[in-house]
């Protein structure tokens, strides 16, 4: 009996996976809703607000993709995933797209068979400690107990960093950000390590943010971005170019407020192509020609999304830094729309 149930589950899982392997765009269109894997709750990046609606920097990518496909940013079903469950959710077809501060690495790209559609946040791993601990550098953390989210690249970076600096630590593995905050607040660990952006987001939600400091060391490169499964290149293109449309919109000064005005008055051929006024760019991916216009109109361009969710006016107070446009000394750069 037990065996039957087990094999039944296995078979169902296998069947579902088989179905999902067909054209993702067709599946999403037939379903009428985009399944988007997001954070269980990381303020600013992906967390339900007071009304239970998901909001955040990553969530806005989901909304932009939904707007590009359906012309309606609300046609998204958010699937909360933990660091441990996210890749299984994507690989099994439970979600069409994963936007959950996931680091682009070689082995995830090749061995786990995913495709990163771009980098929506250039990040690095940092440490947060209580101010009264009197620590000013991560190298002083010899012998400390450190909270670390399991199933992440940060787990491996941490081990490497302490090893290369020849210092010791005790790991306390936690499942997600909320668990980490609870343990950190209770003093079960001296330091909490994750992506610096995540630390800033966590710090903003702690009872007294000023009692905590983020140490200056950034111990790794963490390019975070939206990702899809291998094997459906058109679907990867849709996500990739939706993200680039948001970037290009910032370059070209197209905002949520002025998009209609720009559309009616612009003479810039590239802007006209982005907004679907001339050319058949959308058709090339199986979408409407105004796909990019819808995506931008949903929540504005990349810069607007950044400032609204994690920018200096929000409690998270992240500077653009590496995530400024290439024209302003950052790394964000969109290939040409041609």
């Amino acid at each position, binding site marked *: 009996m037990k065996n039957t149930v087990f*094999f039944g589950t*296995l*078979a169902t899982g*296998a*069947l579902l*996976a*088989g179905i999902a*392997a067909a054209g993702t765009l067709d599946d999403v269109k037939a379903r009428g809703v985009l399944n988007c894997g997001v954070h269980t709750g990381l303020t600013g990046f992906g967390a339900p607000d007071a009304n239970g609606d998901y909001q955040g920097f990553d969530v806005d990518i989901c909304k932009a993709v939904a707007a590009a496909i359906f012309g309606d940013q609300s046609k998204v079903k958010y699937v909360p995933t933990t*660091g*441990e469950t996210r*890749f*299984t959710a994507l*690989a099994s077809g439970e979600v069409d797209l994963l936007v959950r501060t996931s680091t682009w690495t070689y082995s*995830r790209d090749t*061995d*786990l*068979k995913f495709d990163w559609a771009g980098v929506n946040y250039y990040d690095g791993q940092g440490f947060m400690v209580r101010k009264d*601990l009197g620590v000013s550098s991560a190298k002083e*953390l*010899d*012998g*400390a*107990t450190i909270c670390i989210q*399991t*199933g992440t690249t940060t*787990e*491996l970076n*941490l*081990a*490497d960093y302490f*090893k290369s600096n020849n210092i010791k*630590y*005790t*790991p*306390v*593995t*936690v*499942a997600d950000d909320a668990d980490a905050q609870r*343990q950190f607040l*209770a*003093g*079960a*660990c*001296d330091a909490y390590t994750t992506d610096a952006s995540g630390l800033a987001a966590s710090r903003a939600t702690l009872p007294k943010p000023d009692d905590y400091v983020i140490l200056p060391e950034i111990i790794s490169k963490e390019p975070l971005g939206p990702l899809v*499964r*291998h*094997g459906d290149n058109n679907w990867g293109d849709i996500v990739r170019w939706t993200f680039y449309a948001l970037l290009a919109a910032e370059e070209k000064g197209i905002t949520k407020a002025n998009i209609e005005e720009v559309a009616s008055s612009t003479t810039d051929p590239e802007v006209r192509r982005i907004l679907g006024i001339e050319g058949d760019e959308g058709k090339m991916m199986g979408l409407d020609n105004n796909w990019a216009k819808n995506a931008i109109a949903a929540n504005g361009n990349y810069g607007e999304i950044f400032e609204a969710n994690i920018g200096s006016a929000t409690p998270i107070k992240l500077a653009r830094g590496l995530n400024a446009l290439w024209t302003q000394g950052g790394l964000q750069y969109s290939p040409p729309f041609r």
Partner: protein
Amino acid sequence: MAVANDLPKPEFRLSALIYDTRYRAITIQVIVLILALLFAAWLMENVRSNLALKGKDIDFSFLWRRAGYDIGQHLIPYTNDSPHIRAAFVGLINTMVVAVVASILSTILGVFLGVLRLSKNWIVSRLVGVYVEMFRNVPLLLWIILTSAIFSESRPQPKDFKVIDGVAKADMSFWNSVAITNRSSNVPMPVLDRPLPTIDTPWFSISTSLVAIAVLLGASIWANRLLLRRATAIQQATGLRPTTWWQSTAILIVPTLAALIAMGFHLDYPVFKGFNFQGGLSFDHAFTSLTISLTLYYAAVTAEIVRSGIQAISRGQSEAAFALGLRPGRVMSLIILPQALRVIIPPMISQWLSLTKDTSLGIAVSYLDLRGTLGGITLNQTGRELECMVLMMMIYLIISLIISAIANAYNSSVKLKER
């Protein structure tokens, strides 16, 4: 009138497989077996082809790649350079440590509580009843989380033990030897200054000092038994029992003590240094809270099993024992419990099995057991879900089969011998 009994045997025909009752049962079983095998083959083929569709294969070579992550509690040498299979082995040992410690503690506590449950003292019996019902009827996972929360919320942080200007916010217990912080329990560790050499095997190292002490202790106990047997023989021959207590004490204590002193035995006390206590023996609260909750929960279950086992013994047995003039304690230990064991052991086997499997709930408090290493971090970092899960299920299956084999062997040795 005679009836011819020797009817000619009907010739075997194909239709006999269905219409002949002698063959029908076998026919049906063979058909069911074929269908079951076909179904299993279809499922496996389904898994294989769907994995192939996603460009995945079944490959266990990741087990020999560098794990890259650290494990807080490791009883065998382990670094982040060790391969995944060693991390899994570390996890397996962590699983077994909790399972063995909690099984022993819960059995002792459970037998004790089961006997108390039948006490004639109303308050004692009801108190135990309340305990049993409370623990049995709340999910084990909640007890684990509660125990862990009590430790992390109620105990002071390690830095509170730091002495600033001669004053510390928190004091160590037991004459400055034990410190229970909100992270771990730090107790003194027995250390040998001049230990015997250790034997290193690729998987673990054997401390010959420990083996030597164990052998010495075993020999002392055996010598002591000889002494007592001799005393009994003298008592039976002469009616006078020679005084043996000082000889016993000497035999039991002196050799071991001498060996310990020769090897330079002393205690290493935990001392607060930097961020945490250094030195001594440190038990992580993930381990402690998991062990405590498993012990308390399964003690409640064991208590019920013991109670039912005792009640299964007819009252005539204890009445007869009382009539012989035995005191209640001896009636319990000599008459009732040995017979009750036969009823108790079979359900206890399944309790030990459940306990072992329930150690995987340690995931709730980040205890890195087999589920946490092989089924958690390794699975996640390598993305080999199917392989890790299949491997983990097989390991749990093997552990369970071993436990039940041992327990069943014990059971058949104590069960009523019928000739």
